[in-house]
């Protein structure tokens, strides 16, 4: 007991120290971005150049004229806001709102790049944001899966593996029995792998990171094995994909409609999951118990909550959600399975979960950010952009690291996550 409290004190002292340091680093980064935008992007531009943002991508929504901005003036405004935010962060600090402010600065920087890159020409703004929403789907749903298990105290780094395995099974089942069975198969696969993870980490108290790594290696192996042996140029890999449909009325709103309400099933289920999970976690008895197990399992146990059952159930649920996210890759986008199609999205999802402070709404926000960096990569390589496409591809991963480094110290995960619970014998 004595040692424990000492340890806590130590952590507190160390925490505040790095807190100050971190504040200064983050503030300095903001100011650096302001300087960068002003000198590198804004200065060389002539004052009368305009950037056009295209606002219409289809004729379903109500048409409005494109937005035209003066490139140089817009860039100076971006620089000004970044400078102001940076100074405030260094002097006062945004405290809890820091992750939101980081996100704002990120968005501003990206806007700056757009103003600059498309100076004198036009870029499809709505199209880019619509792509952002699509690309954020696996990341957001993956992050939701991660937060479900982690809120109950189980760290799951195997989301990547669960997604790739479910992408495979959904492609096979979808080809054999029809697309809806593909979704069922994916959910079932995710749940099965999650139960292995749960069984290892709850019953055998295996280190959860190692158990997750095991599942990742297994999933990569089994999917590549099956793909090479059975799926190459075979009818087993033609599941088809979900077509987009419009949400009545909402899809007609200019700009907003095409961005958010003109997609396929996965996007709408993502919205739904975020809402349902937020209510379930914060407004129901089940959610309170779920979170209690993740924060302080012993206290929860004392109050009669079955810690093991709660954790098993959390894993099951998390696995089902991860499996659903996996089926997005084959059924929600291209309509077939490829070996490397998840490309680390499961890990980016974990970063999104942390960035979103282990909340559903935060997760979708972070998911959108990562989705945006992906869509930016795609769209910018189409523009005559002076940065090579190969370097742009690094962007999502660099953003993940910056986000993790900038945010983790400030956001706090469930206290008991990652520690096996040992019921004391009487």
């Amino acid at each position, binding site marked *: 007991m004595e040692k424990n409290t000492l340890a806590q004190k*130590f952590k507190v002292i160390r925490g505040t120290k790095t807190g100050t340091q971190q504040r200064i680093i983050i503030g300095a980064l903001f100011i650096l971005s302001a300087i960068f935008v002003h000198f590198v992007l804004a200065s060389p531009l002539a004052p009368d150049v305009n950037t056009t943002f295209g606002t219409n991508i289809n004729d379903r929504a109500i048409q409005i004229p494109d937005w035209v901005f003066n490139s140089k003036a817009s860039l100076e405004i971006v620089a000004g806001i970044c400078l102001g935010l940076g100074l405030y962060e260094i002097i006062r600090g945004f405290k809890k709102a820091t992750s939101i402010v980081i996100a704002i600065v990120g968005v501003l920087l990206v806007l700056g790049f757009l103003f600059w890159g498309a100076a004198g020409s036009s870029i499809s703004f709505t199209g880019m944001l619509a792509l952002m929403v699509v690309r954020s789907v696996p990341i957001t749903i993956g992050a939701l899966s991660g937060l479900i298990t982690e809120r109950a105290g189980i760290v799951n780094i195997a989301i990547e593996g669960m997604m790739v395995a479910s992408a495979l099974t959904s492609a096979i089942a979808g080809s054999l029995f029809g697309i809806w069975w593909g979704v069922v198969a994916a959910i079932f696969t995710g749940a099965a792998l999650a139960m292995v993870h749960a069984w290892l980490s709850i019953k055998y108290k295996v280190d*959860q990171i190692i158990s997750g790594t095991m599942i990742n290696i297994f999933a990569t192996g089994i999917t590549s094995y099956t793909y090479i*042996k059975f799926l190459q140029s075979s009818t087993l890999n033609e599941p088809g994909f979900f077509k987009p449909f419009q949400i009545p009325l909402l899809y007609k709103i200019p700009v907003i409609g095409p961005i958010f309400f003109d997609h396929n099933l996965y996007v709408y289920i993502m919205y739904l999951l975020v809402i349902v999970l937020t209510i379930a976690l914060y407004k129901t008895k089940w959610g309170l118990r779920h979170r209690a197990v993740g924060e302080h399992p012993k206290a929860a146990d004392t109050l009669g909550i079955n810690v093991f059952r709660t954790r098993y159930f959390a894993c099951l649920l998390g696995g089902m959600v991860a499996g659903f996210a996996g089926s997005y890759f084959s059924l929600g986008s291209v309509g077939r399975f490829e070996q490397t199609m998840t490309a680390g999205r499961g*890990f980016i999802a974990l970063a999104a979960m942390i960035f979103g402070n282990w909340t559903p709404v935060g997760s979708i926000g972070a998911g959108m950010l990562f989705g945006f960096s992906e869509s930016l990569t795609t769209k910018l390589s189409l523009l005559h952009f002076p940065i090579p496409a*190969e370097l742009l591809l690094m962007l999502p991963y660099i953003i993940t690291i910056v986000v993790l*480094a900038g945010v983790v110290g400030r956001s706090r995960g469930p206290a008991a996550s990652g520690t096996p619970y040992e019921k004391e014998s009487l």
Partner: protein
Amino acid sequence: MNKETTGQEKRNFLSIFYEELSKSSITIIILSIVSGFIMGGILVIVTSPEVYKAFAVSFGEGLATSWKMVANTYSSLFLGAFGDPAKISAAIKSGDNAKILSAFGPFFESLVVTTPYLFTGVAVALGFRAGVFNIGAEGQLQVGSIAAAWAGWTFTGLSPWIHIPLALLCGALAGGLWGFIPGWLKVKTGAHEVITTIMMNYIGYYLIYYLVAVPFKDPNEVVPKTPWILESAHLPRFFPEPIRFHLGFFIAIGIAFLIWFLLFKTTWGYEIRSVGINMNASKYAGMNITVITVVGMALSGAIAGLGGASEIMGVYWRQSQALSTGYGFDSIALALLAQNHPLGVILTALLFGFLRSGSKVMQLRAGIPIYIINILQAFIILFLAAPAIIRTIYRLKKPSIKDLPISSTTSLSEKK
């Protein structure tokens, strides 16, 4: 079961032997490997259409076909890894040197494949010992190889005595940087190394993709490739073409011994291990956690980078874009199997190297995709991480002391 509890004197030699065997962690390791292979065999049977056809004929036929499939798979794996024993004995009888060498070709090729495993295995093991889970050996190996390649063609007119160490150093520095960044971020900001190292893998991958495509591209090639490295940067090979067995293997063995000496015979190594086992206790004992974690991670990265350098300088002599090796990920299983002991890594790296080298022949001869190796590895990790499963299956007894010390710093965020 009851007899053992009733009296000690009734036990004979065999039962004592059995009990000792049950408690040994070596038994668990060997049984894990064996069980991994059994699971692999089951997978081969389940995924072979021939077996289903045979079972449709009769049960006996089905069993026979299953056995034939598995035997064929593993025997071609063995042939691919070690070479054909018949050929080898014929070659030795003939006394012709060239024939003997070509018969031993697969064996030496397996040693070539083992070499990067040695580096990455020691790297990951060292990371585990220092309490960091380095999944980034893959990326560190790759940036190490591009850096060594760059040093290999940039510095002209050097003697091999200077050029080889210089290129190796460049590889180690690049890999070290790739390890240093996650280590530093972990200490300074609490970003968990599992995620940051994976991100560094992707960043490294695209960086190489870019470097090979644009600034480092050999203008004479259509497909993006770097120029050939100079003769003076080639690691010496021991046999004439086509055997590629090179000095890198012995450098790797040397590194393994060096790290073993560092970890177990120096104060510094003691501190690394202590931090890895219990960070808080080490903190109170006055050790500098920050420095040890960062240096441990950077050193781990440097060793993996050295592995990449040895691949370029000993085997390929140039770098192309398609460089998805998988060595870094395999080395996690490898290090766990070796219980994070640098000398144990030598044995497990040989195992994995021979498996990997043999799997190519297996894919050709038996039609079993090489990815079965990943599945074997996953099962081996599973059984090692949860020895209780192995104990239940094989009815072994519980050891009096605690299980294999496999753990990492689990939570994805530092609690402050």
